[in-house]
């Protein structure tokens, strides 16, 4: 029940309970979180009514902007997911997600950090895996966009590593690099949205490793092949080069990629700036 005048802390707790309620100010005023501080009939003693708008309508101006702000922030970080879901389902997702994971950061750029994990348990099971993978790819892109600029490993440094040291060497991924294992259809969804084409809904068979990286501050994607993708995943996880190669060899036709193939992969990854350095400590 009301205890007017409210101390500042209680007033702010009440206002927040009203303004971020998922069903708007009218419903919020009757909700227990708000009634703890102000009874619905006492609201006009807290918020001044004048100019043709009553207290609830004035609160609703703020309450109405809250979900729009959350929606815009997530729509901006997850445009392909929004296209895949369709606008109505995406709005529902935003409301459900924000109710569980409200913004606790000074920036809305962090709002969607946990969306992929949330999606794994949200909505109809149909295409859930595809939705989650699309979100994981988009989150990786956002992380790469915001990552610190690091100096990429240079080819000279690679050539300078003594042959005997390679087996135990570990490669340090660049800050602006993520490798994401997803259903191939997730890549198709992102490509379609980027090109303005209708969004395909097939998840595709198996999984592919997708490298997200940055060149000249532009976020880029590359879908890896099955063998270089596996090797890259092992290396990016911090596994020593020797055991990563052993693991890759098990899946490579003929037992082991040739030196020429391996050199080509390493040269390409170096050129694209996937790694920032080599750690030679055993």
């Amino acid at each position, binding site marked *: 029940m009301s205890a007017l005048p409210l101390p500042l802390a209680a007033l702010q*707790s009440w206002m927040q309970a009203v303004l971020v309620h998922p069903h708007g100010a009218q419903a919020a005023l009757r909700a227990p979180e708000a009634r703890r501080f102000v009874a619905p009939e006492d609201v006009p003693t807290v918020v001044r009514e004048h100019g043709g708008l009553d207290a609830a309508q004035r609160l609703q101006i703020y309450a109405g902007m809250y979900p729009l702000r959350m929606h815009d922030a997530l729509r901006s970080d997850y445009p392909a997911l929004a296209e895949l879901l369709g606008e109505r389902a995406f709005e529902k997702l935003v409301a459900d997600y924000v109710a569980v994971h*409200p913004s606790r950061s000074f920036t809305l750029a962090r709002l969607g950090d946990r969306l992929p994990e949330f999606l794994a348990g949200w909505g109809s099971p149909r295409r859930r895996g595809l939705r989650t993978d699309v979100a994981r790819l988009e989150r990786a892109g956002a992380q790469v966009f915001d990552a610190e600029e690091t100096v990429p490993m240079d080819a000279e440094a690679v050539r300078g590593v003594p042959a005997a040291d390679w087996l135990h060497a570990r490669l340090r991924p660049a800050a602006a690099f993520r490798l994401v294992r997803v259903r191939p259809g997730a890549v198709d969804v992102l490509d379609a949205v980027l090109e303005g084409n209708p969004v395909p809904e097939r998840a595709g068979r198996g999984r592919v490793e997708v490298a997200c990286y940055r060149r000249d501050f532009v976020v880029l994607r590359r879908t890896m092949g099955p063998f270089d993708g596996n090797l890259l995943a092992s290396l990016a996880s911090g596994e020593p080069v020797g055991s990563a190669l052993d693991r890759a060899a098990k899946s490579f036709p003929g037992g082991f990629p040739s030196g020429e193939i391996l050199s080509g992969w390493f040269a390409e990854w170096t050129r694209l700036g996937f790694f920032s350095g080599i750690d030679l400590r055993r």
Partner: protein
Amino acid sequence: MGNRWNLPVLGYGIGLRTVHFADILDRRPAVDFFEAITENFLDTGGRPLHVLDRVAERTPVVLHGVSLNIGSTAPLDFSYLGKVKELARRVEAPWVTDHLCWTGVAGRNSHDLLPLPLNEESLAHVAVRVRTVQDVLERPLHLENPSSYLELTASTMGEAEFLARLTEKADCGLLLDVNNVFVSSFNHGWDAEAYVDTIPADRVVQVHLAGHSDKGTHLLDTHSDHVRDEVWTLYERLVRRTGPVTTLVEWDDDIPALDVVHAEALMARDVASKALRTNAAAA
């Protein structure tokens, strides 16, 4: 006339917005200064920070925050303040600004600029926090009057009086948003001219101008259009009191080409010049 700290008058600037990044880097427009939204450049090492660094190399940059949460009863976020301090140092911002509002309690951020009751309790609470923030930042903090859509009955004084007393008590400056004065005055039935005449002119370090939208029952501070004539008139009235003052045009929605936004800043320069000529003639 001029601000009491002799802080520099930076001229007539515009907000640094993503859609203009390429244009700004390529054409190097003769904008007097840029204002960056602080939070957009914290915890990022990508293109935005790169662009900000390039801009700051040749043009003054001030930082304008939206998450200081100065009016909240939640504790100040010193981790956030540390990041703001580092960014301000990086771009050599002559000052940092944020809003007289609160944005959340209990660890949540509504990302809205929520109104405070304008009374003695809020005054004491905010003043202490402003002093703490200025100590941490080691740089002037100026607070902006937000646009508001509701008034709390716990208020015991008008916003202009509150700002006058707060800036005195906390020894901080004012970023006076003239559009917000107009919007809030319309929404609450205040006298906008009396507001402008009441605020302590020597504490106004920066001015904001922007467009707003008419929602029928209220005005909404959308930053989505040209500055309205009534706001230009208020601005002219203000400049007659403050003298030359750092002025910035905000445009955040339906953002037009850089030249259009810059033209609005140049319009501010013309309006200010007219106000100053009027003063000179009267003298």
